[in-house]
């Protein structure tokens, strides 16, 4: 319980309509997209300005109350999981697009603006905001910055960190800093680069300057069907090896295709694996690369290829892909979204391992992923009403991460470590590496009040979790620690 005087201090800053303390309403904020973990905060505040955020943070710092920033709550790693007896700072009311500056190819927004709103605002002017997480209709720019979010088109265009020029930043003790900026090459350390992807643990972003990109002249989208994931993976490797950089290469397996078809009816062929390849650029260039890609698909054993003939056809192909997570509900009562990365050349091999794990555990795994950059999203399907099924699903999901690490990859490509994977960090990083990250965190927030317990492992946190989360001795000893 927070003391009454402290709550009144917060209320004075945000007013009655910016403050939530009633239990049922607090429940809404108890989890993010990782719905299995829930903690009710003591209070939620919804500020409107940078100054209000700074005042709230100062009040929390003074009273030693932990606080957690929250955007739309679509995060999938429990990054916005509240701290009991802590405060959630919801940025959803700070949703103004403050400036569109075409001369300098940039847009300034508040953190609660959704990803898609940015592109919508500049699209009529011939521009777009490149990072496009599948959750883009809902997720916020603040959340994107915190997670360094990616999306299908990041293969060509890069991630959030490549598109943020500057930010207004409230430090963990409530001071206001300007990091980076519209004028490039700010002197000193790249604090902005450090903050992007730090999962809200270093401070709160209250204004962001984004780079916008000219819409390409033409876009070609291919949907290719293959008998097996291995064949599709072969096509991916050959496309990359041919020196083509598509805007996106996405892959789905049979189960994922079936689930998506149930809700979107996009007419995907019934096949073992579907590949979506998108090429953009000047018309002659994308047409030339399109021919190359079609040849490569044929040579890799594609059973069918379709080229979207209209904007509507393209949109339908993408609609099915972007509905992949949501559609799992149609084929399974429960599912867990894993997020791991492998070198793209290891695709066939790791997918086989996932198949074997799925058989061993007797749980179905649907695969849908950003194949171009080796970012896997295995969806582990289970039924919570079956005793022990949830636990088995988590174990299986954990073993998939082990396979990613062994293949030379990563435990997360875009969903972040959050509270979900903090205890996996020692599998990827040596104690020395983690201690350096901890020292960076201390540099920003010595009192450990800003989103504590996320992103980095803590003894308290990782001592509590079941055995399956614990790193094996062999990994702790550094065998898995090879750059």
């Amino acid at each position, binding site marked *: 319980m927070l003391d009454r005087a402290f709550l009144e201090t917060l209320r004075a800053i945000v007013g009655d309509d910016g403050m939530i303390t009633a239990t049922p309403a607090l429940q809404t904020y108890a989890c993010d997209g990782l719905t299995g973990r829930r903690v009710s905060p003591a209070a939620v505040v919804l500020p409107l300005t940078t100054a209000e955020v700074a005042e709230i943070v100062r009040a929390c710092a003074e009273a030693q109350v932990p606080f957690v920033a929250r955007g739309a709550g679509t995060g999938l790693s429990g990054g916005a999981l509240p701290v009991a007896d802590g405060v959630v700072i919801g940025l959803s009311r700070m949703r103004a697009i403050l400036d569109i500056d075409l*001369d*300098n*190819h940039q847009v300034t927004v508040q953190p609660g603006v959704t990803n898609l709103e940015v592109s919508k605002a500049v699209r009529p002017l011939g521009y777009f905001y490149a990072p496009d997480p599948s959750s883009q209709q809902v997720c916020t720019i603040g959340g994107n910055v915190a*997670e360094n979010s990616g999306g299908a088109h*990041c293969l060509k265009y890069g*991630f959030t*960190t490549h598109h943020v020029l500057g930010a207004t930043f409230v*430090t963990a003790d409530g001071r*206001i*800093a*300007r*990091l980076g900026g519209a*004028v*490039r090459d700010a*002197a*000193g*350390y*790249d*604090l902005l*680069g*450090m903050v992007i*992807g*730090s999962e809200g643990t270093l401070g709160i972003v209250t204004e962001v300057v984004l780079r916008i990109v*000219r819409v*390409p002249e033409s876009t070609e989208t291919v949907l290719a069907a293959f008998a097996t994931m291995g064949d599709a993976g072969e096509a991916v490797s050959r496309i*990359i*090896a041919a*020196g083509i950089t598509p805007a996106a290469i996405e892959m789905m397996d049979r189960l994922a295709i079936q689930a998506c078809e149930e809700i979107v009816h996009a007419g995907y062929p019934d096949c073992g694996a579907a590949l979506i390849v998108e090429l953009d*650029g*000047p018309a*002659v*260039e994308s047409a*030339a690369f399109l021919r190359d890609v079609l040849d490569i698909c044929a040579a890799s054993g594609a059973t069918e290829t379709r080229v979207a003939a209209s904007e509507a056809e393209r949109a339908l192909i993408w609609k099915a892909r972007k509905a992949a997570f949501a559609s799992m509900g149609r084929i399974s009562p429960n599912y867990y979204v894993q997020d791991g*990365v492998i*070198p*793209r050349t290891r695709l066939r091999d790791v997918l086989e391992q996932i198949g074997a794990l799925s058989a061993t555990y007797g749980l179905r795994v649907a695969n849908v992923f950003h194949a171009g*950059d*080796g970012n896997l999203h295995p969806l582990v399907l289970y039924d919570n009403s079956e005793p022990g099924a949830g636990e088995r699903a988590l174990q299986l999901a954990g073993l998939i991460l082990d396979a990613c690490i062994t293949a030379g*990859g*990563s435990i*997360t*490509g875009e*969903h972040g*470590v959050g509270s979900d*994977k903090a205890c996996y960090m020692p599998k*990827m*990083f*040596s104690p020395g590496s*983690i201690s*350096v*990250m901890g*020292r*960076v*965190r201390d*540099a*920003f927030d010595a009192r450990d009040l800003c989103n504590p317990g996320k*992103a*980095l492992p803590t003894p308290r946190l990782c001592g509590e979790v079941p055995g399956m989360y614990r790193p094996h001795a062999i990994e702790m000893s550094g065998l898995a*620690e090879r*750059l």
Partner: protein
Amino acid sequence: MASVAPELVLFAELVGAAHVRAADASDAVGGVVPSLVVSPADEDEVASVLSAATARGLAVVARGGGTKIDWGSPPERCDVVLSTSRIEGIVDHEPADLVCVVRAGTTLSHLQKTLASAPGFRQRLMLDPPQGDAATIGGMLATAASGPLRTRFGTPRDLVIGASFVLSDGTVGRSGGKVVKNVAGFDVAKLLIGSLGTLAIVTEVAFRLHPLPAASSTVAFESRSVLELCEFAARVGRLQVTPSVVDLHWPEGVVVVRFDSSEQGAAVQAERVTRDIGGRNLTPDDGAALTASRAGSPWTGAGAVAAVATLPARAGEFLSSMSATCDAVAWRPLLGTGEMRFAPEALETVRTAVRTAGGRLAIRRGDVFVSGDADDDVAVDLMRSVKRQLDPARTLSPGRQVGGI
């Protein structure tokens, strides 16, 4: 440092006598002459050298190829130059994954040659900093140096996917990995890139690579009016084309636009520019010759060199005001960044003009070196805090960063 001999013996024990020597005037860093040059062989030796230096209160400056050793403010102290020349070689190159891992003391030119010769692949690291041939990977990271390719591919921060490093207390750490997409753990490498060696010694770096283009087409637009040159570049920026290079050169009065793509893709984009806004299409030979002739600019020739940034849209006005003051300017109009050379006496004039334009200035060559002006006190405070956490004894390049960090 009071006397050289005992320290020489100490470091000789750590790295071998053949790899420690007394320093001379040619080893000076920003005018400060060190006592010793120590060349550790690997990460472990770097860790022991740094621990020993820190325990004795010695200041250490890392040196790669030495091409940018004077960038940044002069160090407050410099006892030991830590040469990375032996921490050399390519650890891993996975052409099919378009990634490589390379030791910090490797020269960029050696890396590029190795990458280009992988059988069956044509690829490279898309960075081309000034004095790039002798530059090492570590030095390029510490200075965040980039060149014309920045317009399309960015700076080291955009292409580094992982790094190993050693802190001054000997802690060995790593961030990132060797896959292009990865958000696990704090991206500590971001802090090290552009740190001017003040936070850690980088020992190994993983990069994202790009395929070499099949073809290039170059457009040149000439004018004696800086404003006209800037306006041309801005119009290129509004076209639906993706140039790799858009560079403005003064006093030559030319904007060079280069497209790297498929044969057709490059040609079509170049034609689009000449048709819609002007300039002339160069033959491949002429394009290559023009690029080569401008490659060293503005570094070739005497005088001070400054790195400057302004809002892209304000550059025309700013550069016009500088056209008489500066002897040479190489500018990236789409980003609003560039380098300019001028007589040392003109420094105050340049500084005032940059300030008037709301820009930033760092002095890279001249009588004084300045790592730039910090424009936000709270940010500088955070930077100090980072320095205190990672290098509390101020062993590494003390005083070289903004605010005397």
